[in-house]
């Protein structure tokens, strides 16, 4: 930044003089130069239509622009309100227009409509934000930036004939500081002339008493102040939209045909469509764009920057150099940031300590559990060992008894064997000892060689031997 030495130049700023010219200089062509440039660049215009599903938003757009913009009927069952922008390139003579129509899908359909206005406000703010971002870029190209900011919001009021709905009031109040609003009464062919008059008055008084600021057609330019002033008195416009044509007289006009008559869209005594078109498109389109940029966008920008912490410079203050401002801000924010850093570091340290402590606790718990489980396991093991010991003892006892039985059987006389043979067939037992079952068992066991590998298997073998033994009470056969 260059610090200028004030002696080096002086501004001899004589009071602006009005000089008379000695001839035709030619700068009266400046407006034409400007116009020719903007025609080359092309124009863009963005319309937001807010209204209940089915109230005639799409039809009105089609009627206004004489084009069938593709759209299917919207459903009533949307979860919430969402905005659907569509961009079209139109041309009329040599004028190119990039038109964006934003529809509010699902508006008014939900049972709880408290948040219905939010997506709309968010959308408008987002477009402002995008423009602001572009404006703040280092390398910016504002002259060929596609401006998506909403220039006009057409608010569709249902033709109840009574008054605004609560949703209408709430929504318009939220939107009036962000966008130019023109309220229109939709499907106006359901209202009679007298009802319409009362309806309009009621609507306007409700808007005024609630402080809703709708767009006023400008009356500062003498060329158009008269027509604008008279149109302001006709708000809200009662419109009828139609893309179908009906033959009236010898012409085909856009109209709606009823058994009781034909409502002609472009007949000013039938509805205010022509007024809307005149005001919106043919007279004030440029003013709407200007207001959006100079008023609504500037308001958004100012709020946003104030939020970010920038303050306005005092208009009476000395022109200070950016260098100094920079230094001052630098000190201030350096201090702030250091403080914040400390806070965060402290918080982080605390959090880590906490988590560490938690982890330690959990570790201890786990360890305890492990010990407990280990103990239990030890106990179980001991029990099993005991049982095993017991079982081994039994086995030993059994073997002893078995050995005893063997020696006993060997000392018996032979004839007992013969008796046995005389008795029956399937006699495996050759000892022929009749007695208690245990003795029989032992005898059997004596004869059968034990092939088992383990004491467990042995028990089982004996068991199945017992099972298989064909024995009847009283002895073996």
């Amino acid at each position: 930044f260059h610090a200028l030495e004030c002696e080096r130049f002086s501004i001899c700023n004589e009071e602006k003089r009005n000089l008379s010219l000695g001839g035709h200089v030619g700068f009266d062509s400046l407006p034409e130069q400007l116009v020719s440039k903007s025609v080359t660049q092309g124009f863009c215009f963005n319309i937001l239509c807010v209204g209940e599903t089915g109230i005639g938003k799409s039809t009105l757009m089609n009627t206004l622009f004489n084009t069938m913009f593709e759209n299917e009927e919207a459903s009533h069952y949307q979860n919430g309100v969402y905005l659907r922008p569509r961009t079209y390139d139109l041309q009329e003579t040599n004028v190119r227009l990039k038109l964006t129509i934003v529809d509010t899908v699902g508006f008014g359909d939900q049972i709880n409509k408290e948040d219905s206005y939010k997506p709309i406000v968010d959308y408008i703010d987002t477009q402002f934000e995008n423009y602001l971002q572009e404006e703040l870029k280092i390398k910016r190209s504002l002259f060929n930036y596609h401006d998506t900011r909403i220039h006009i919001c057409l608010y569709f009021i249902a033709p109840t004939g009574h008054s605004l709905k609560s949703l209408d009031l709430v929504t318009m109040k939220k939107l009036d500081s962000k966008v130019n609003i023109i309220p229109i009464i939709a499907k106006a062919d359901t209202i009679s002339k007298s009802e319409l008059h009362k309806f309009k008055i009621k609507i306007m008084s409700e808007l005024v008493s609630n402080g809703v600021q709708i767009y006023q057609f400008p009356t500062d330019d003498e060329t158009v102040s008269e027509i604008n002033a008279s149109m302001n008195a006709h708000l809200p416009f009662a419109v009828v939209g139609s893309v179908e044509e009906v033959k009236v007289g010898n012409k085909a006009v856009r109209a709606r045909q009823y058994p009781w008559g034909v409502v002609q869209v472009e007949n000013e005594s039938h509805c205010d469509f022509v007024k809307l078109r005149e005001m919106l498109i043919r007279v004030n389109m440029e003013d709407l764009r200007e207001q959006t940029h100079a008023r609504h966008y500037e308001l958004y920008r100012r709020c946003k920057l104030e939020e970010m912490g920038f303050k306005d410079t005092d208009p009476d203050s000395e022109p200070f150099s950016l260098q100094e401002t920079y230094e001052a801000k630098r000190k201030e924010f350096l201090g702030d940031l250091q403080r914040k850093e400390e806070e965060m570091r402290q918080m982080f340290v605390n959090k880590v300590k906490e988590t560490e402590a938690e982890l330690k606790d959990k570790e201890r718990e786990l360890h305890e559990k492990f010990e407990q489980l280990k103990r239990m396991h030890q106990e179980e093991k001991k029990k099993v060992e005991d049982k095993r010991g017991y079982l081994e003892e039994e086995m030993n006892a059994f073997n002893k008894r078995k050995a005893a039985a063997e020696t006993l059987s060997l000392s018996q006389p032979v004839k007992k064997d013969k008796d046995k043979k005389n008795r029956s067939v399937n006699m495996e037992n050759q000892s022929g000892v009749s007695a208690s079952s245990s003795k029989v068992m032992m005898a059997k066991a004596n004869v059968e060689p034990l092939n088992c590998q383990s004491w467990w298997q042995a028990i089982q073998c004996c068991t199945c031997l017992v099972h298989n033994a064909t024995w009847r009470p009283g002895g073996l056969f």
Partner: protein
Amino acid sequence: QTKQGERKQYVGFATLPNQVHRKSVKKGFDFTLMVAGESGMGKSTLVNSLFLTDLYKDRKLLNAEERINQTVEIIKHTVDIEEKGVKLKLTIVDTPGFGDAVNNNECWKPITDYIDQQFEQYFRDESGLNRKNIQDNRVHCCLYFIPPFGHGLRPVDVEFMKALHEKVNIIPLIAKADCLTPNEIKKLKDRIREEIDKFGIKVYQFPECDSDEDEEFKQLDKELKECTPFAVIGSNTVVEARGQRVRGRLYPWGIVEGMHTRIFHVCSALFMENQSHCDFVKLRNMLIRSHMHDLKDVTCDVHYENYRAQCIQEMTSKLAQDNRMESPIPILPLSTPDVDTEKLIKMKDEELKRMQEMLNKMQQQMHDKEQ
């Protein structure tokens, strides 16, 4: 507005240009023109001739000894003029003293400083919170007067133009062209154009014609471009010639009809060639009648944007050195230095996330074990 047979199809946004026209007339226009060159080149006279008015009443001319150590001054004159309902706030920025001293080292510095200061002021205004009434004092065009007595550009001419060509639209002119015969003028113009190319000076370029313009216009446009730098003569005197009162200069050897004009169309930027002994009319038509707005646009879209970008980059490089800072002016962070910081932050974030996940998992496991 409605055409027969197309009545149904007519929507009406074709009136947009008219709406723009209407609003611009209501708002009025402004233009800042700087003139630079040594004393006595005819700058003031030319300005008066251009705007058919006398801006320089009662000015004091210095003599040679007063000029030895002459420093360059910057003097602004602002006037409001109106023609056919169109208002123009015209500011002429004079640079008396330029090139007059014996040592003219960096005599263009006050001029570049002035231009930069206007940019800076605009930048500050544009970045402020309240932008309702920003005044645009940026210099839209600089007419640079080259003396006709030499063989082309002199070192001071080259240095001046090189110092300014990226800050303002420069239109070089051959001053006092009535001392050159047509051949000499042609030779000098060729020479100057060559040297401008050679030294890489970027003078104001006329925008290309639209391809759908008619042939006549394209031809005129071509001639205009081949005629640069314009050789001009200025005059404050009105003389009578052939029954008409014209601005001209009276010599014993006849009248140079400098300002005699014929017919002019305005809106369509078509202008007829006229019988002029110099390029004054071409200059006037180009400067005022067809390219005035373009000069403003180039200043806003090119020169100012360059200045602004440079300004911001200087500021953010300082911020980057400081490493954590706030700027006094709302700007977006530069992508290059912050890309690294952002990456770092992202990495740390992810680390934290991972650690958190691990913690959660462990907690879950222990919870399961409990059960």
